[in-house]
């Protein structure tokens, strides 16, 4: 440890690596998170890359970032403002300074803070010289030069040499963070082990960065975040999109139904498709369709044919699938539709996150067309909610829309690895060969669920389709009373799913001054804020919803126990509208933000306090 640096122990720290699209910030960030995780910290991460693939060099449009929040306590979000910013060029500094805490440490590659790079970033003057960084602890190092320097004895391409400068930055942060540089080297070896020269170069640069930092006078504080007290078990870091993919695969295995995905790429859902494409060894059949409509229609076909089928998309794709979701409702076939929400309307803000597809999920189809809607609320629980969506879909023979968002999908956190045998059983209602009085629309008395009769099975020949049909027999029918009956049965079938989902839980007391309500991807920020305020003795609780259609049975009871209700959403108030429809007897306050950004804890704290204040003043 450096002679003169003092070590500050912290509960949690937020680090962000930012640079040009080609600077390797995603890799640096990933390595750093693994390092922290292996050290026993809890963590969450979020990548923040531009809509452009490689926007022009040194421009704001081309800034790519990766943020990591590590803690010795439970970490719920990738963090609001950062404690350490590593900025490889002026543009990345410019774009990110607003997210840096006062007094935070900023590590800069001073070799890039000159000439055109400054003006291209939109600076008039060099920020290193104009005093604008005086409130920060700036570690300005000639990273590019030092990188080249450290590699001068190795025989490698100059261009390549420069590209390892991210490792030098990582080395500095490893030091700043009081981490074990050897462990960092090991992680780099895992990545590049198969290419020894590349590994060697990266190792050299990483170590050089570490040593350089150690020797620096300007570093006055280094941080220490102890291991978090975590439940025993095996852990891994996982993004929401990968977790979703795996949850679907687990459901397939558990149900015994082969997996089929029909999908079309779209940001930010594409990673689910890509992840599933590499798991053919699990028998997963992945069909990259020509468009979203073919994606869902092929999935409906596969479901009819007896596979457990899913389709994955984001907002505009969900719009395109509307008509076919109706077909799945009418044919009463299992189907999971994963919608990773992004900023809308229309193409909107494809790389930003939002919660504005809720009403579309509930109502965006012609006719009376109910489906189950559930929402995951953290990257890791995407695994469970994908699994549960699949279970409900198969066991209740109905499409399920599972909502996540770009923030969850691309963000990561730690997952305690479950055992498949411990997951709840999935029992699809398969019709047996030659089942005596099989009828396509005969229903289970309790659940109203019809049977799944798979083509190829002896004695179950039947026909389904999108026209209204008679209950039990399933013949096409325009009979007035039958239609009304079927509309009601389809609605009731989804309502009865209430009996198969858990009651809504409340974070905090069951009654109090303020009930905060959220749903989906905002859980981390809401929970952090509410817990903090509970520690400050506010009578505040949180009901964060994952089950939306149907709502948990005890929802009304919860709502009735608080003086005020505040619904927080990253949209203009879609869930609050849905609550008004269901429980018009309550008065709802609402807090809405539609900026393509997540909630921040400070922001929420202020909002909550204001609402509670009003109360006192009244």
């Amino acid at each position, binding site marked *: 440890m450096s002679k003169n640096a003092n070590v500050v122990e912290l509960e949690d720290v937020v680090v962000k690596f930012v640079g040009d699209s080609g600077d390797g910030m995603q890799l640096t960030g990933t390595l750093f998170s693994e390092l922290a995780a292996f050290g026993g910290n809890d963590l969450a991460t979020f990548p923040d890359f531009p809509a452009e693939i490689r926007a022009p060099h040194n421009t704001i449009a081309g800034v790519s970032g990766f943020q990591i929040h590590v803690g010795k306590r439970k970490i719920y979000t990738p963090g609001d403002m950062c404690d350490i910013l590593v900025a490889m060029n002026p543009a990345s500094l410019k774009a990110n300074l607003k997210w840096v805490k006062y007094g935070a440490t900023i590590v800069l590659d001073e070799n890039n803070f000159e000439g055109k790079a400054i003006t291209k970033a939109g600076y008039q003057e060099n920020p290193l010289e104009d005093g604008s960084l005086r409130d920060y602890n700036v570690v300005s190092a000639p990273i590019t030069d030092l990188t080249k320097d450290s590699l001068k004895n190795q025989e490698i391409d100059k261009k390549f040499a420069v590209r390892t400068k991210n490792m030098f930055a990582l080395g500095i942060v490893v030091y700043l963070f009081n981490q074990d540089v050897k462990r960092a080297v090991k992680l780099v070896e*895992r990545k590049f082990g198969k290419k020894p020269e590349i590994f060697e170069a990266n190792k050299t640069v990483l170590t050089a960065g570490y040593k350089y930092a150690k020797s620096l006078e300007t570093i006055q504080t280094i941080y220490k975040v102890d291991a978090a007290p975590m439940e025993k078990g095996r852990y*891994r870091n996982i993004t929401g999109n990968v977790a979703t993919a795996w949850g679907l695969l687990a459901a397939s295995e558990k149900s015994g139904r082969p997996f089929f995905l029909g999908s079309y790429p779209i940001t930010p859902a594409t990673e689910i498709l890509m992840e599933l494409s590499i798991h053919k060894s*699990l028998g997963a*059949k992945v069909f990259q369709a020509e468009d979203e409509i073919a994606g869902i*229609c092929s*999935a409906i076909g596969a479901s009819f044919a007896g596979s457990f*089928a899913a389709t994955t998309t984001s907002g505009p794709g969900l719009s395109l699938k509307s008509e*076919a979701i109706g077909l799945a409702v009418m044919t009463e076939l299992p189907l999971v539709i994963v919608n990773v929400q992004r900023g809308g309307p229309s193409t909107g803000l494809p790389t930003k996150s939002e919660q504005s597809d809720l009403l579309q999920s509930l109502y965006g189809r012609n006719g009376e067309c109910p489906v189950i809607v559930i929402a995951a609320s953290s990257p890791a629980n995407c695994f469970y909610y994908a699994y549960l969506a699949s279970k409900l879909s198969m066991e209740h023979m109905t499409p399920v829309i599972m909502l996540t968002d770009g923030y969850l999908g691309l963000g990561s956190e730690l997952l305690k690895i479950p055992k498949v045998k411990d997951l709840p059983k999935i029992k699809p209602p398969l019709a047996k060969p030659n089942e005596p009085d099989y009828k396509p629309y005969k229903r289970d008395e309790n659940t109203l669920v019809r049977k799944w009769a798979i083509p190829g099975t002896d004695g179950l*020949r039947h026909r389904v389709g999108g026209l209204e049909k008679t209950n039990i027999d399933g013949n096409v029918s325009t009979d007035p009373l039958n239609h009304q009956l079927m509309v009601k049965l389809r609605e009731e079938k989804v309502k009865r799913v209430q009996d198969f989902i858990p009651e809504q839980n409340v974070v905090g007391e069951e009654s109090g001054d303020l009930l905060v309500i959220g749903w989906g991807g905002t859980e981390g920020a809401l929970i952090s804020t509410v817990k903090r305020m509970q520690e400050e003795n506010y009578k505040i609780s949180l009901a964060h919803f994952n089950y939306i259609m149907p709502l948990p049975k005890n929802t009304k009871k919860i709502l009735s126990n608080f003086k005020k209700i505040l619904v927080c959403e990253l949209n203009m108030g879609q869930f609050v509208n849905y609550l008004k429809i269901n429980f018009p007897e309550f008065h709802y306050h609402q807090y809405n933000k539609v900026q393509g950004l997540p909630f921040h804890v400070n922001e929420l704290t202020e909002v909550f306090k204001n609402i509670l204040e009003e109360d006192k003043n009244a």
Partner: protein
Amino acid sequence: MLEKKRIDKSPVELTKKDFVSDQMVKWCPACGNHAILTAVQKVFPEIGYKKENFCLVSGIGCSSRFPYYVDTYGFHGIHGRAAAIASGVKIANTELSLWVATGDGDSMAIGGNHFIHLIRRNIDINILLFNNQVYGLTKGQYSPTTPRGGITKTSPQGTIEHPFNPAGLVMGSQGTFFARVLDNNVKMMSDVMYEAAKHDGTSVVEILQNCVIYSDQAFANIASKEVRDEAQLRLEHEKPMIFGKNMDKGIVLSGNKLRVVTIGENGVKEEDILIHDQYKKDPGIHRMLGRMHPPKYPIALGVIRSAPFNTYDRLMSEQIETAQKSSSIKCVDDLLNSGDTWEIE
């Protein structure tokens, strides 16, 4: 009886009756669809699979009511999506003999994209394309195959669109099987359907179907008794392309074009006549055959192309097998524990 891959054969001999469902057939009297239904019910027992291994998928249109009338598994989809739905059915369950019943509107208007992609992927599905050159179910608007100038409810001054030639579109989309038949010839229809079933890959059977209400007589210039001998070339594999009342007309290749000749005239001998090779991979001649039409040429009927190429469904199964052999991830527990993981004690 057809021997094909993993599809189960029927343990008992089936007849046409076995494929008649209990549903009332609701097409207009004299609609060409009735004969198509007969042809299907006739050929299914000949193909010889178990009833449960046949599956019919359709979109929306008069033609798309087809699945209701055949006693197999059936799926009446939504407009234009039959090909997409069927793709999922077949990829998921390769043990089915899968048939798509679709109209010219269903598969070439709204469903055009799924149609060309299915063909390109060469999934083993048999498409019965009911081409009546009109939207029947919605009562008579022009379709993508309505001949230029056709007067319909939405083209009071005649259409101004160049119609698709289904053969051209199929082959332009890398199609491996294309056949054409007339709805007034049940024998030829079922023969060709048999060939379609035999073909590995996407088979398109274009059926020129008479809609007695909205496009009656659309095919009179080739189908009527008076003209048919001169207007139809009935292709058979390895047989010369001879036609005409007196079987004295034939097709020859002259330069890069087909030409109609009369045997015995201008020194043309039977040996000069082109021999049909439906299995040829190169689509050159098949394309030309597909485009021929009266008055200059006869229309080509029968199997025009049936070229052997890999199918999507088989390649998909192979990739899965390969992956299962080579990957260390055999179950979801393996997956969950793959890559970077660590134990907290």
